[in-house]
C-alpha cells in the first residue's frame, strides 16, 4: 500500500500581525512548523504503515525553506519526500495548488490513500484537499476523525454538522483529517533526523511535473487577494458606571428598551 500525505509549512502561531504602514504581513520572528492538521494526517498514515506494511510519501509545495517540513516527515517515519518548489508556483491559490499537487501525486505512481489536513491554520480554506481529489478523479471524504483500512476499502468516521457519520469507500481515496482535541505533535529524535538523511528526497519544478504555466502561480490563480487589513474596530462603546447595583439597574433599563426582557 502506498500512502501520500500532503503537508504545508505554516507560521507557528495565529498571532500574525499586519504592518499598519505597508499593509503586509509581519512574519519575522515567527518560526515555521508543519501545519498541525497535516501533522495529524501524517501520524495517521504512519500508524497505518505499522499495521499494513505501507509506504508513505510526504509531498509539500512551498519555497525552498519548506524543505524542513518534508524532512520532518521523513524523520518521523515517511519513506520518501517531495518538495514542489519553483518560482512558477509562487502566489498560487487553492486551485493552482491543488493542480500542482495532483500532478506530483500522479507522477509518484500508484497510491491507495492521499491524506491531507482538513485545512491549514494560516489560510483556513479547507479547499486544497477536495481540489486535489477532483484533479485526480478519485473520491473524497472530508473532515475525517478516524481511518481504518481493510483490504481494498477504507473505513472512516467523519464529522458532520449534526454529529458524525461512518462511511466506507474503495481505495484510492483522498481523506482530509480533522485532529482530535488531545492530539500532541510528536517530534523526532536526533538519531531519526540523522538517519532520515539517507531517505529519497526530491525537489520538483513545474516542468518536472508537466504543469501548464497558465494554471500556476499568481497569474494562473482564479482568486486574487485585493487587500489585507486588520479586523475593523467595532462601534462606539457607551460605558456604564456607578455602584454595582446602579450598573445592574442600567443594564435592566437597556434590556427593557431593547425589548430583551420577556
Amino acid at each position, binding site marked *: 500500500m502506498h500512502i501520500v500525505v500532503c503537508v504545508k509549512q505554516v507560521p507557528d502561531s495565529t498571532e500574525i500581525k499586519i504592518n499598519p504602514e505597508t499593509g503586509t504581513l509581519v512574519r519575522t520572528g515567527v518560526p515555521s512548523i508543519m501545519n498541525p492538521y497535516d501533522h495529524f494526517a501524517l501520524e495517521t498514515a504512519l500508524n497505518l504503515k505499522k499495521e499494513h506494511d505501507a509506504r508513505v510519501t510526504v509531498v509539500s509545495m512551498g519555497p525552498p525553506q519548506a524543505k524542513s517540513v518534508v524532512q520532518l516527515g521523513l524523520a518521523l517515519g515517511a519513506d520518501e519526500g517531495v518538495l514542489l518548489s519553483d518560482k512558477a508556483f509562487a502566489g498560487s491559490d487553492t486551485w493552482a495548488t491543488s493542480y500542482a499537487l495532483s500532478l506530483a501525486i500522479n507522477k509518484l505512481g500508484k497510491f491507495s490513500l492521499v491524506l491531507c489536513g482538513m485545512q491549514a491554520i494560516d489560510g483556513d480554506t479547507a479547499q486544497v484537499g477536495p481540489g486535489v481529489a477532483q484533479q485526480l478523479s478519485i473520491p473524497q471524504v472530508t473532515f475525517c476523525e478516524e481511518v481504518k483500512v481493510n483490504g481494498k476499502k477504507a473505513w472512516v468516521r467523519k464529522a458532520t*454538522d449534526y454529529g458524525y457519520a461512518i462511511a466506507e469507500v474503495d481505495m484510492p481515496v483522498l481523506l482530509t483529517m480533522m485532529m482530535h482535541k488531545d492530539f500532541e505533535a510528536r517530534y523526532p529524535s536526533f538519531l531519526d533526523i540523522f538517519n532520515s538523511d539517507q531517505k529519497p528526497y526530491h525537489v520538483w519544478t513545474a516542468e518536472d511535473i508537466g504543469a501548464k504555466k497558465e494554471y500556476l502561480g499568481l497569474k494562473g490563480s482564479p482568486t486574487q487577494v485585493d487587500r489585507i487589513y486588520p479586523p475593523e474596530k467595532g462601534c462606539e462603546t457607551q460605558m456604564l458606571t456607578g455602584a454595582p447595583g446602579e450598573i445592574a439597574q442600567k*443594564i*435592566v433599563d437597556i434590556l427593557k428598551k431593547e425589548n430583551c426582557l420577556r
Partner: protein
Amino acid sequence: MIEVLDKCIGCSKCVPACPFNAVSMVGKKAVINEACTLCGACVPACPVKAIVITREDPVHRDFSAFKGVWVFAEFEDTGRKGPKKIRKVTLELLSEGRKLADELGVELAAVVLAEKNRNYEKELGAYGADKVYLSENCEFSDYDTDIYSAVIAALVSKYKPEIFLFPATFTGRDLAPRIASLIYAGLTADCTGLSIKNGLLKQSRPAFGGNIMADILSPNSRPQMATVRPNVMKVSPPSDKTARLVKENINIPEGMRRVKVLEKKVAGYESADRIDCADIIVSGGRGMKSREKFNVLEELATLLGGMVGASRAAVDMGFKEKSRQVGQSGTTVSPKLYIACGISGAVQHLVGMKTSDIIIAINKDPNASIFSVAKYGVVADVHEIIGKLIDAVKKAKKIK
C-alpha cells in the same frame, strides 16, 4: 472544447456517465452531441483517457454570457424520517444574494437538488429567490460529493451564473471546492462579508485564525464562487413572493456514488441545544474564575430566556462544554443580545460574535478588546455585577 481522441476503444462506458445523454456510440466510437455542457462527468469514465476537455485560456475568456447570482440550497440532514427542512443558512445566503443581485441588476436563483419538490419555490421565493433550479432524483436524498458536484457543474455550464454562493458548512465546504476545481472557478472560503466592487464580487474573509482580514476577487473566471460562514448574514423578513420554477431532468449514472455512508449519528442538533439558535446569549470567559462561579450565568440566562455560551479559555478550563464555545474554533453566533462576562475578547472570539445586535461587555480590564465591539461596556469585577443583575432582572420581571 471537448474531443474524443482516436485511441477511443468503443467500450461505451462514457455513454451512461453523461448526465445529459450527450454521448452516443457511432461506429465503435464515442460521439458527443450539442447537449454537452462540458461538465466533465465522462472524462474519468473513459478507461483509456480518450476524452479530453480543453478549456479556453483563462485570461482571455469572455464572461458576457455569465449572468445572475446563485445560491446552493442546503437542507437539514438530521437523519429523521420525513421531508427535510431548508437550513437557515440557505435563507441567510438568499438574503445576502438578493442585495448582490439587486446591485448588479440581475436575477437571484436557488439551486435545489431534492428527492421531490415540496413547494420550494414558495419558501425560497419568500426569502428573495426569483428562480429555483430544481432537479428531482431519489439519489439526492443523501448527499454525495461526486453526484452533487457533477450535477451542479453541469447546471453551471448550462445556465452560466456569474456568482455562486454556498454555505460554509461541512457539506458546503466539501462540495464547493470540488466544483470549483472541476470548472476552473475562483472559490473563496468562509466569507464573512460580500459586496460588489467594479462589477466583481468582493469577498471578505478572516485568515490566520481571525487576526487579519482579506478581500478576495476572482476576475478571471466564472462563476465567482464563495462559501459563506453561517450565522453572520442576517435573514431578511419573508415576502409573499413565489419564485419561478425551472425543472431540470438529470440522469444519474449508476455506480456514481462511490462513498457509502453506513451510519449517521446525530448529537446535539436539536435547536433547543444549539447555541447558534439562541436569541439571547450570556457568555462567560476566563474571568469567571471557576466552574462553580461560571454556573451563576445559567440563572441569568434562564431568566432572560437565553442560553449560556463560553470563550475558548473557559472551555479549556472546563467551565463549559465545547458545544457552547463561541468563536473561530467553536460556533459563530449572531443573537439579538450577547452579554460577555469576564471575556477579554481574543480576536478569535470576536469574529464569532461581533455581528450580534447588542453586545454588553463586563470586564475589569478597561483595555480589554471585548469593549471594541461592545455597544455597552462595564468596567468592573463581573462577580460583583452578576448577582445584582440577577436581582434587578427578577425585580423587573415581577413588576411587569
